[in-house]
Structures are given as C-alpha cells and as structure tokens.
C-alpha cells in the first residue's frame, strides 16, 4: 500500500496530486506507527505529516505553479541505476539486522530497560516517552526546539514575517454576507463547530501528555492547525487580526527561553542544567513541574512557528 502510493507520487506530473498523495502516505504511516505501539509518534505523524506539512506544500505550489515538466528519458536512467544499486546494498546489509520484534535485539539491551523500570520512581509520569523526552534526554529536546526555532528564523529572513510589503493594498476582509462567503456556508458552519473543540483538545494534549500519549510537540501542531483552518475558511486577514504576525513572531523565542529558563533555574538551585530534581523541594514534584513547564515552552514554540510559517507562505501567494 505504501509502496503503491509512492509509485503514484513518482509517476504523476501534477504537483497537486503528488502533495495530496503524500498526505495520504503520512496518514498510512501514522496507522503503521499505531500498529507498532508507537502511539506518540502516530499522533505526531497524523498531526504534522497529514496536516501541517500538506498545508505548507499547498501554499507553496499555489505560488510556484502546479505542473512539472516530465524529465527527459535519458536523465532518469542514471538515478534509477544508482537507486537500485544502493537499494541492493542496503538489502544485503539488512541480513545482519536483528529480526523484527525480537526481545533480545541489541536496541532493547542498552538504556531502554532502565527507562522502563526506573522512570516511574525517578521521574514520575506513566508515559515513559514523556519521561525520556523531557527529563532523561532534555538536552536533546532542547536542541530540537532550537532547530525548529532556527528554521523559523530562516523562513522569516527569506519570506518576511507574514506582513505585507509597504505600498501593496491588503485585500479587504471578506464580508460574511457577500456572495463568495455565502457559497462557503457548509465550510463555515463546520469550521465554526470544529475550531473551538480542536483548540481545547490541543490544551488537553498539552497538559495530559504525562499520562497518555501527547505533549508539547503534538499540542503545538494541533493548536496551530486549528488557527490555520480558521485562516483558510475566513481568509488570512481576520486570522492576522486575531494573532498579529508582528507580535506572534516573538512567541517562538518566548517558548525557547521558557525551556532554557527552567534549565538556568535548576542551575541556580544548585543542580545541573535541566536537572528538575532541584526545581522543587521534593525531587518528584520538581520533575513534575519541570516537565510541565518545558512542555509548555515546546508547545508555545511549535504552535507559533507553524502559524508564522503559514502566514509567511500564504502572504506571498496573495
């Protein structure tokens, strides 16, 4: 099924269908992750791959055009041979891989048993993924948030902060009663119904990430997708009145500083950077507060980055 989808993507010349097939591909992958017991990853893939990244691609092909020229026949031969050659080498290498699902594979012998057995006593949350993400590997996650932030700065430098250049007239905000909005009545009603629950769901995912699947990364993307849905249905101008891009551009920094702030605070309290044991008098409470705050920082950064990128890309296509 996955392979068939990918072959469709390779063969089609229409970018619109390639992007939609990629969205479908992401949804399939999300189901596969679910089957492989990776609930947090499935959650993220569904929100990001099938939601946010598809929207970004659609916004980009709205600017650059929908069709690609077919590659010349001679040009495809060399990549094809190279890919088949590399693939054959990788298949040869795969014979050394431990079989799928084996309990005694090397990957399950290293740090994972400790995470699974000790995290309840050392960190607290029943969701081990959250413990590892926010506490054991807090440095890694801090770095990842930094990468998201850096990518956002790059988009900002390339495309501007989602604000119009001076001298270009903004399109008037669509009137609810005019003809084009009346035709979109189904979309409008459905989005009215959906946006508020999605926002609340994002907050639930944010704060419940310790106990069930979820956390700052997922919550941020879900929150952003509610705002993006609003912007798609009602137009970008009302969405920007709701969240002015100039102010929104500060938020990714705020989230990152919140994360770093927890680290600095734990240093001031006499621990190492991001050592939550020292955040409160009781180490387990400290872990709990530390994880909550850094997940909030992650959520703010991710949500603000996604909305900002969407504004930047869609302002260009107006």
């Amino acid at each position, binding site marked *: 099924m996955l392979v068939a989808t990918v072959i469709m993507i390779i063969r089609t010349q229409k970018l619109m269908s390639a992007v939609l097939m990629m969205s479908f591909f992401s949804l399939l992958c999300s189901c596969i992750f679910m089957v492989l017991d990776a609930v947090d990853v499935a959650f993220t893939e569904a929100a*990001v*791959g099938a939601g946010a990244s598809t929207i970004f691609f659609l916004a980009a092909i709205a600017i650059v055009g929908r069709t690609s020229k077919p590659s010349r026949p001679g040009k495809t031969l060399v990549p094809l041979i190279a890919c088949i050659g590399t693939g054959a080498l990788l298949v040869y290498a795969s014979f050394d891989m431990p079989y799928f699902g084996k309990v005694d594979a090397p990957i399950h012998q290293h740090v994972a048993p400790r995470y699974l057995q000790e995290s309840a006593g050392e960190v607290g949350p029943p969701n081990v993924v959250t413990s590892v993400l926010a506490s054991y590997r807090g440095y890694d996650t801090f770095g990842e948030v930094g990468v998201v932030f850096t990518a956002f700065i790059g988009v900002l430098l390339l495309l501007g902060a989602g604000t119009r250049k001076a001298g270009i007239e903004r399109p008037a905000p669509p009137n609810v009663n005019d003809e084009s909005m009346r035709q979109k009545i189904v979309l409008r009603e459905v989005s009215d119904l959906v946006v508020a629950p999605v926002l609340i769901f994002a907050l639930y995912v944010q704060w419940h990430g310790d106990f069930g699947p979820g956390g700052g990364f997922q919550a941020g993307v879900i929150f952003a997708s509610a705002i993006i849905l609003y912007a798609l249905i009602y137009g970008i101008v009302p969405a920007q009145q709701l969240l002015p891009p100039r102010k929104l551009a500060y938020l990714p920094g705020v989230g990152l500083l919140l994360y770093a702030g927890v680290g600095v605070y734990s240093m001031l309290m006499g621990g190492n950077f991001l050592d939550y044991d020292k955040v409160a008098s009781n180490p387990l409470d400290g872990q709990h507060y530390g994880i909550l705050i850094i997940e909030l920082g992650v959520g703010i950064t991710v949500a603000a980055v996604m909305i900002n990128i969407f504004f930047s890309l869609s302002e260009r296509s107006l």
Partner: protein
Amino acid sequence: MLAGLFNYWVVIILMMAGLYVVMSSRHLVKKIVGLNIFQTAVFILFISMGAVDGGTAPILVEGTTLYSNPLPHVLILTAIVVGVATTALGLAIAVRIYEAYDSVDEEDIAAMDTEDRRQENAVTTVTNTPS
C-alpha cells in the same frame, strides 16, 4: 527470514523511491516531496526497530511488563516536528527562487545561469578591448 526482515525491505524500497524522486525530478517542490518520503522511511525504520513482539505502548500500566522501546519513539517524535520545520524552510527557498527566476525547474534555472555567465563574460571582454 522473510517475515523477520520484511519491514526493513519495505523501508529500503521507500527510501530508494524517495531518493529517486529527489534525483530525477526537475521540479524543486517535487524534490522536497521526495526528501519527505525518504525521511518518513527513516522514521519507519526506527520505529520498526523499537517494536517488540507481544509488547504494548510504553505507557506504564498495572499488569504489563513488556513494552516497546521508548527511545526511538522520542527520537522520531521530535524528528517529525523538526522535519516539518526544515521542509518549510526548503519551501521558502523554493518560493524565493521562483521569485528570482520565475521558474522552479532545475534545468531552466541552470540554463538561465549559464546564459547570465556568458553575457557577463561578453561584457567584460568588450570593456577590456579598448584599453
């Protein structure tokens, strides 16, 4: 053997398909689609390695002792979000290239570049001859 390695072989096929799109396609946005496919194949590889026969999702509950490995889940979870941010950066670069060249076709852009360089060389030779 077939059942044990099947996941990895699917991953390899997907990975090579992504690589093929990146190398053979002329449209820059489609190249980014190819990169995304490649990236997702890597995700499946990691998650497959973390899975355990008879295991369950790594959320601690009473009465279960066998969980899948949480470490790849953490790595891939963050990688997905970082992936979409870098994809957006790639798309932003493609949009800027379109604004500068009025095309996102790799070969057209290369042709325009060679044309520019030829003209620049012609201009320098003309200005150099009088002296």
